């Protein structure tokens, strides 16, 4: 009887200690294994990053990179903006193909329309720029692609489209006072020489009148965030 009592005492006295030690020991072993494997396992939690949408094909990224480098957003080149000739050269695509690059951004962009021979942003155009710009989400680059309709001289239209692009930039600076603007906003002015918009772009969000003809939408600055990581 005494032996039974002693056995009972010993068994029940040691049971919690043995179990606790065994469980903690197992955890210790798993911890050591996890530490050893930590370097080889891929990280399971997603890491915060700019957006990189499905339309950002390698071909598109290549062209975007060229445009951005030539236009001063990537690399060490000072100043900003691409002139029509530069845009045409760096894109190395036809005007239609160049415009096609922007088609996937129809829900992210807008076309700011100007009056003929004018480069002042009309009030409706400002609110469109603000709406598009504040919807940045994960995008890294904001493109302003200004154009002019074919009326008038080529050099005049080149200059006019440049002033239109700069008017958008000035408005952004004044409204948002954002130091990131210099790293995010790319300006292209195409005059009447390259990548004129066709009627397909009339369906886009526009600041102009409801009636839309190609000449109207080329007195414009196309604005859009580009959801691509370069």
């Amino acid at each position, binding site marked *: 009887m005494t032996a039974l009592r002693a056995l009972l005492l010993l068994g029940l*006295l040691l049971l919690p200690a043995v179990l606790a030690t065994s469980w903690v020991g197992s955890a210790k072993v798993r911890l050591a294994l996890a*530490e050893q494997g*930590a370097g080889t396992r891929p990280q399971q939690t997603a890491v915060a990053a700019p957006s990189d949408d499905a339309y950002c094909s390698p071909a598109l990224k290549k062209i975007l990179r060229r445009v951005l480098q030539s236009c001063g957003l990537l690399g060490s080149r000072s100043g900003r903006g691409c002139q029509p000739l530069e845009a045409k050269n760096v894109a190395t695509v036809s005007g239609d193909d160049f415009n096609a690059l922007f088609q996937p951004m129809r829900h992210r962009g807008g076309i700011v329309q100007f009056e003929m021979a004018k480069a002042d942003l009309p009030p409706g155009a400002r609110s469109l720029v603000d709406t598009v710009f504040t919807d940045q989400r994960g995008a890294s680059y904001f493109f302003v692609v200004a154009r002019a309709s074919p009326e008038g001289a080529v050099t005049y239209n080149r200059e006019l489209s440049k002033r239109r692009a700069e008017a958008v930039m000035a408005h952004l600076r004044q409204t948002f006072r954002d130091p990131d603007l210099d790293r995010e906003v790319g300006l292209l002015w195409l005059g009447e020489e390259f990548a004129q918009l066709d009627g397909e772009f009339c369906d886009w969000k526009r600041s102009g009148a409801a009636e839309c003809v190609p000449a109207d939408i080329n007195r414009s600055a196309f604005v859009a965030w580009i959801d691509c990581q370069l």
Partner: protein
Amino acid sequence: MRPRPSLLLIMVGAALGLLFAGFSTFDFAQHLDRQVHGVHCSFLPGLTGTQVGESGCQAVMISPYSSLFRAKLWGGIPISLPAMSVFAFLLFFAAEVALSRRQGDRRATGFLALATVLPAAASAVMALVALIEVGSMCKLCVGIYLASALCLLGGVLVWRRARRAEGNADGWAALMRRADAPKSGEPAWVAGEAEVEPVPVPEAPMDSAPGPSPAPATAAVGAGYLGFAFALGVVFVALPVAAYVASAPDQARFVGSCGALENPGDPYATHVPLDPHPGGAPTLEILDPLCPACRAFDLRLAAAGLADKLDRKAALFPLDNTCNWMVGSAIHPGACAVSEAVLCAGARASLVVSWAFEQQERIREAAARDPKAAGRMVAARFPELAGCMGSAEVRSRLNKSLRFAVRNHLPVLTPQIYVAGVKLCDEDVDLGLDFALSRMLEQFRQGTLERTQLPAAGAVSPAAAGKVTP
């Protein structure tokens, strides 16, 4: 020596308590490996699997009431471990009382009954804490409470029976004494001894009284026996606790090993004050005001008593795809609107955050049905913010806050805590909070808080080395 039913009740209760407390301790100890584990959450813990994610059992386990000395030992000592010991002791002592034929001993059974009060009282306190403070009940804990109640019931019954039996024995002995004494002409029970009239004992057989005499077979236990039993009870508790503490892995080496902010600056003033304590350790919390884990962290921080040592700010990171492109869906619907309100509130941001924590479920449910509902709820509670919410400026600021996470390559996860730029490991945000945070604060006070690298090869990327200046 066959145990009485009341003694059997204690044994069954103690065995059940040992089982439930054992599973509870097992679940707790699993987490010492710093991984995510399910917990047993059933009245039949051995027959059902574990549950991962939110459950009453998980909430209770993570709550600051599930363990002791959390600041000294990672996770602390789970209270279910001493509970195991107490139930093991009760099981042993109940068996001892039966085997040593002391079921009729008032002192031995009294000690046993007193011992059953301990788990019963602890269970009552813990049940109240779970209901009032934690707001969740765990099935394993309920199992422990019921087991404690069985033990208490058995303890009281076995003690009462022993008292009555001893009373009977005293009465019988008195009668014998009267019979032996010189006759006074009246039977003893007539001459004022009627109160010791023998009472029949219904429970049979009574091991301690095998014959017709109700007197106990063994002598009543003395103070020495009871003192030894008490000391044995202490050893029952101390031994597993000591074994647990001695074998627990060293978690201090992980402090500072989980990275740091690469670009801690806030050029766009998007960080909002949460709980300012000038002079405290500058602490940044990556926060989603509708995230239950953020609310739970807030409560744990308050319970840990460390909040006063932190100068807390929040970088808003709503897990809602309305504004956050890094999540595929609205994990917390309405979080973008509430985050805008927090930014709009400026210095009073903590008021909005506190309200959002209180109303989390209601806001999320309403926003899941109608995406604009969260904005309306905030505007109804804080009308002064209505004009700011949804404005281009605040939307831009919220975007900048999200971009803070991008700039620092932070995990898409809330909450994340950075003390003086050094990350509190995600594994230390719940059970290990008191332990890890108190060490980080101590290192900050001494000026030695820095990003470290684990000695184990490959545990942290080589780029993770280098001091971070507060």
